[in-house]
């Protein structure tokens, strides 16, 4: 966990005061809605279908138990008793009143949480691997750098009015859980031949109307230079990003139109003006941030404790353990994923009671720390393996032990037509229906890892392009239809899915997905050939045939 100091606290509190003043001016009519809009967006406030929606940042997905309790408090006090965890490592509240927002923010500020730049045409919440700092084989904890980036991009005077939103993601593992290739800037911590730590910098990834996989702009930028290099990219983007057309304003379009070489040359030029300037980091600066990340005092514990052996006979426990428990860098500990995807549930939703209970469990079993992943699940990052059975029993009682993490019913879905004013179609009910269809753990285990992603419109908030199976809501003559893509992935081998054919009506979606899954089961070479790998080998044709032959 990163511990705030007086500087961080001052900035967060001053931001709350500023927003309180802005809300006051809006309510009194001093600010028009047009003037207020960019200001509220920069503080995570959207005007949605039914109400204001409030998006709170969870930088690099790390939360303390006190912070989670405070989120529960906001859900209970100002909203309808639940919150929605999103693919951006944020939490959204859907029913908050404008007049209550400053108070909600002030409450959150007490525990060092804010909503700065969770929306708007500025640098957004920096996301990271939700297993950062605990995954085996990392170069180092990428959150130290994510925090440096968070600070640098927060209320940045030059980049608060960019052509469009701007998103960073960072990882330090070869296996990419942060989806860095679909971000405006993706950063991968690497070590060069001299043993120095630095970054491979990717640029121009993104989803939405024109999806792109990010390209490497520079294979190695030393840690000390990362802020000046990023500043150079942003400066080029700020100056040359298109402002004439909102759909072409993202950096991915600029990179695509110029070509990566030409874009890189522009960045080099801009960098030459500021490299070695005040943005250069030195060891003291980096150390200061690193020193404020507090790590648990792990014990020496056995890898196979008696408690685990005793629980092994319980099939329900074992089913959960098989997909919710991952190896930890520290022997005797595990990383545990809490599924927010119960059969028939809205992906990512958690009630205030669940949040409070998870905070208590984190205190008891995970050194008071929780993570939020972009798959819309929660994680307890430091659980002693001997505690797994007890933890499981507690989670089971809370409805948070659905044994489906990474499986077909671990669906990512945007809010869609249930909340979102931009939606063409519903997302949540599709997710709910699919999660019921694939609720049988044995069938799910047979299918293996398979990611379904659903978006209610072309904006792609549910990452549908990079779902192994992507479902995109479109509208035809006032009715909801869905385009299906297959073969997408968001990891280190990121790819965009391929459309399998004409869009299908709402009522057919679940059947079509079942057909695709059945086709896979009959076509795969071995039981451990993943769905995406089978699609890669076979192309879309056999799946297309299966789906459309009878329709």
């Amino acid at each position, binding site marked *: 966990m990163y511990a705030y100091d007086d500087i961080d606290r001052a*900035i967060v509190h001053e931001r709350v005061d500023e927003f309180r003043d802005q809300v006051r001016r809006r309510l009194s009519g001093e600010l028009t809605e047009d003037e207020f809009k*960019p*200001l509220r967006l920069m503080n995570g406030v959207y005007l949605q279908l039914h109400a204001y929606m409030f998006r709170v940042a969870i930088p690099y997905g790390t939360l303390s138990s006190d912070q989670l309790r405070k989120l529960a408090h906001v859900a209970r006090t100002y909203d309808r008793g639940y919150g929605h965890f999103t693919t951006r490592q944020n939490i959204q509240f859907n029913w908050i009143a404008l007049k209550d927002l400053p108070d909600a923010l002030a409450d959150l500020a007490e525990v060092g949480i804010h909503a700065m730049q969770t929306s708007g045409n500025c640098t957004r919440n920096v996301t990271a691997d939700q297993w950062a700092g605990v995954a085996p084989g990392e170069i180092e904890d990428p959150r130290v750098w994510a925090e440096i980036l968070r*600070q640098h991009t927060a209320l940045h005077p030059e980049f608060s009015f960019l052509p469009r939103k701007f998103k960073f993601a960072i990882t330090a593992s070869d296996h990419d859980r942060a989806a860095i290739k679909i971000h405006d800037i993706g950063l991968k911590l690497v070590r060069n031949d001299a043993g120095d730590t630095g970054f491979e910098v990717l640029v121009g990834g993104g989803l939405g109307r024109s999806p792109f996989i990010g390209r490497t702009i520079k294979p190695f930028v030393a840690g000390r230079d990362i802020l000046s290099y990023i500043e150079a990219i942003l400066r080029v983007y700020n100056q040359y990003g298109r402002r004439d057309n909102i759909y072409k304003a993202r950096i991915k379009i600029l990179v695509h139109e110029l070509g990566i070489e030409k874009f890189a040359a522009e960045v080099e030029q801009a960098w030459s003006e500021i490299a070695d*300037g005040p943005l250069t980091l030195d060891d003291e600066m980096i150390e*200061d941030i690193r020193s404020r990340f507090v790590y648990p005092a792990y014990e020496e514990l056995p890898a196979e404790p008696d408690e685990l052996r005793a629980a092994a006979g319980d099939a329900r426990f074992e089913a959960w353990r098989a997909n919710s428990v991952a190896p930890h860098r520290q022997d005797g500990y595990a990383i545990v994923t809490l599924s927010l995807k119960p059969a028939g549930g809205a992906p990512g939703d958690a009630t205030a009671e669940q949040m409070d209970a998870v905070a208590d469990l984190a205190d008891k079993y995970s050194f008071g720390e929780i993570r939020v992943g972009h798959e819309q699940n929660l994680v307890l990052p430091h659980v002693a393996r001997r505690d797994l059975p007890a933890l499981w029993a507690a989670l089971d009682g809370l409805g948070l032990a659905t044994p489906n993490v990474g499986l077909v019913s671990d669906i990512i879905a945007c809010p869609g037509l249930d909340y979102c004013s931009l939606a063409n179609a519903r997302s949540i009910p599709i997710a709910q229906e699919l999660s019921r269809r694939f609720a049988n753990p044995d069938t799910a285990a047979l299918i293996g890892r398979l990611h379904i992603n659903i978006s209610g419109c072309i904006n792609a908030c549910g990452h549908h392009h990079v779902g192994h199976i992507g479902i995109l809501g479109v509208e035809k003559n006032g009715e909801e239809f869905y385009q299906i893509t297959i073969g997408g992935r968001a990891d280190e081998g990121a790819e965009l899915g391929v459309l399998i054919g004409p869009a299908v009506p709402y009522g057919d979606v679940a059947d079509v997905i079942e057909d695709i899954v059945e086709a896979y089961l009959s076509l795969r070479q071995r039981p451990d050939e993943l769905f995406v790998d089978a699609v890669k080998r076979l192309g879309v044709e056999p799946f297309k045939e299966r789906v459309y032959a009878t329709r």
Partner: protein
Amino acid sequence: MPLVKNGQIVADEFAAVADDAELPAAGSVLISAARFLADPDSLAARNSPLGVIWPNNRDVAELKPWLDRLALIALVFPTYKDGRAHSQARRLREIYGYRGELRATGQVLRDQFTFLVRNGFDALDVRKEADAHAFGEATHRYTEFYQPTGDGHRSALQLRRQRHLTSAS
């Protein structure tokens, strides 16, 4: 529109002169970039203060040869959501060392004052009267900043580094 310069509401000493109008023999004038670039050397050699309105889609590096002879550069915010002039300002001040008046014009509202000042603007052509009067309040809201800019304010990283070194010695 009220002009706020170095924190005070002041009268504008510069007269804006249209491209097709004659330049007065004396007095401070503000002209377009196109007019300036058509004959920069003789304009810059004029005996009274000269200001240029620089559009936000043109590279400020073009102004480099004349920076020490320009009394005012006015950068433009056509809408306040268009932040190009923020980058232009920082390049002029921090990289090219421009020391004359740097003025923000267009949609200049209270909620960007802090940003503008941090980026090196010392004069703001403010859109709303009430905002101009709120200048002090608006620019003193924040006591700490995360980023180093050319405004002389220490960034959080620099402050902490200093504390770190002080406590270590």
